């Protein structure tokens, strides 16, 4: 029986999610025995228009040519899996959707803005083509990738674990940073998959795995206010890596106040 063929495509992204493959170590060799990798630029394979059984897609749609390319990828693939926050919810770069000053930012940042062809709004892959499975995370990890591949090799639907970080925190017997320190943790509304990585190191979850099932974002936002967070700080909790995920966009939007009348006014770092 022929081995299933896979491709790993990159769109607007930092390449970090592709490392979930490259960091596999020995398992990457085992994976290579199970599947045939036809296209994966970061690993050296190039066949961008190959017909494949599974296409992994990293990155958001941020330019007009990416809209064209994702349609081609979809047409060439049986099963399409988005990997990571950018592909699944727009990622960090989708922050530009929030203030509506796309052109001003572009002109302020680039020396020759006439060469920049970008979309005014960054969108996730699923807004343009049908996505069969979304793997969340910034970045995704190898466990998620392998579990999805293994399930598909068995011919069953991959498990979509939408549990919240809190459940994993408690399984790991990590002490709650919100209850013991009053730290505004996104764990109660964020899906697990990371193994509660940040709380295990004593810091608050910042929501990089996106919304969990029944994410009670507005309830948590109210709690953040009770922990003395000012509206802008609450908005930043929700509108960071997964700002376009509806459950985060809605809660963050309540507290978001566009301060970028003139994006050139100054450095917004805090």
């Amino acid at each position, binding site marked *: 029986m022929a081995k299933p063929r896979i491709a790993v495509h990159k769109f607007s992204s930092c390449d970090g999610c592709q490392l979930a493959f490259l960091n596999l170590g020995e398992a990457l060799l085992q994976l290579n025995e199970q599947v045939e990798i036809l296209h994966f630029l970061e690993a050296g394979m190039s066949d961008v228009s190959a017909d494949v059984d599974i296409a992994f897609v990293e990155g958001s749609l941020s330019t007009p040519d990416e809209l064209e390319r994702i349609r081609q990828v979809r047409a060439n693939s049986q099963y399409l899996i988005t990997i990571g926050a950018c592909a699944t919810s727009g990622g960090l770069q989708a922050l530009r959707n929030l203030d509506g000053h796309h052109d001003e930012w572009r002109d302020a940042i680039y020396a020759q803005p006439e060469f920049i062809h970008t979309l005014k709004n960054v969108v996730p892959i699923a807004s343009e083509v049908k996505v069969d499975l979304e793997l969340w995370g910034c970045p995704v990890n190898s466990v998620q990738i392998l579990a999805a591949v293994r399930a598909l090799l068995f011919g069953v639907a991959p*498990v979509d674990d939408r*549990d919240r970080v809190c*459940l994993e925190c*408690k*399984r790991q017997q990590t002490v709650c940073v919100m209850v013991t320190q009053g730290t505004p943790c996104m764990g*109660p509304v964020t899906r697990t998959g990371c193994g509660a990585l940040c709380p295990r190191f004593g810091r608050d979850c910042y929501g990089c795995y996106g919304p969990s099932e029944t994410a009670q974002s507005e309830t948590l936002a109210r709690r953040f206010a009770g922990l003395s967070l000012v509206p802008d700080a609450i908005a930043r909790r929700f509108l960071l890596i997964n700002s376009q995920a509806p459950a985060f966009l809605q809660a963050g939007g309540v507290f978001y106040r566009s301060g970028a009348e003139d994006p050139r006014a100054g450095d917004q770092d805090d």
Partner: protein
Amino acid sequence: MSAADFLPRSSLSSLIDLLQQQGYRVVGPQVIDGAILYRPLQQADQLPAGIEQIQQPGQYRLIRTQGPRLFSWANGPQALKPLTFAPRETLWRSHLQADGSLRFEEVIETTEPTAVLGVRGCDLAALSLQDQHFSGDPYYQQRRDSLLLIAVDCSHPADTCFCASTGDGPDARAGYDLALVELDDGYRIRAGSPKGQSLMDNLPLDAATPEQQQQTDEQHQKACQQQRHLPAFEPSRLIHQGQHPIWDSLAEACLSCGNCTSVCPSCFCFSESEVPELDGTTSGHQRQWDSCFSEGHSYIHGHRFRPDTKSRYRQWLTHKFGSWVEQYGRSGCTGCGRCISWCPVGIDPLEALTELGREDVE
């Protein structure tokens, strides 16, 4: 003349030494990451000396004092539950054979004899509930059988505690091998099992002075005066109060995060899943803590019976305080107050029960 039952604090290490000599791994309370956690203990100076605590709805803080006591706090996020009901474990493995059949391999890891120091009455009561629920579960049972339980009567209940009203504390009532009362200068000890008695026989004990006896009684009386109480309600009616408006306000306040059930010492729900190796020839069958606040908990073949927070909260409360009585002969709540302290938004289920109980009276 009372029997010798007093162990000076300076001799507490003789108890730990004795346990270690008898081959026990000792687990005891320690300050880790701002909370009291039960972790392997080598010596007495790892115990939380002078530590007291403030617990409020949604808040848990430790306070360092100069006091000599080692157990002047109520509890931490967990105590016995993770030691008997593992947060995550592999139950069995299956191996694909050359002829296409599967070979199943049972995986039970043996646990070394473990002595737990500093167990509270509320946790012993919850352990007894878990014993009922996991009766016949070999994974639970072998860990349970490995335990030697050394209780310390609670002298400093938190504001979130209400064990006096559930009848499970503040003193250890049953299920311990040894129980200690911590006084300013040492411990009064009583045995609850032959194993405990034989340990006691090997400790350098003195007779307690009248002052120590008096302090024991006064301390107990004081610990019984808790701010919170289980309100009056009719357990069998809870499940019929599904239309009560309280569920809507709870759903508004609740994150559905499952922290209450995870820290509850009697909650026992778990999920099971397959974790196959990449080559597809071997798979581990795993179980892990789940919660009635997760969508997976009520998922049955294509349908989620409890899709929203309202139905999940109602399920938890009516089971814990209502149908649990029918199932296990008593309420699932032992008054430890963890669900109140460790709720990130500070929901107090006793307030909901008070509301629901009002309907009984009307």
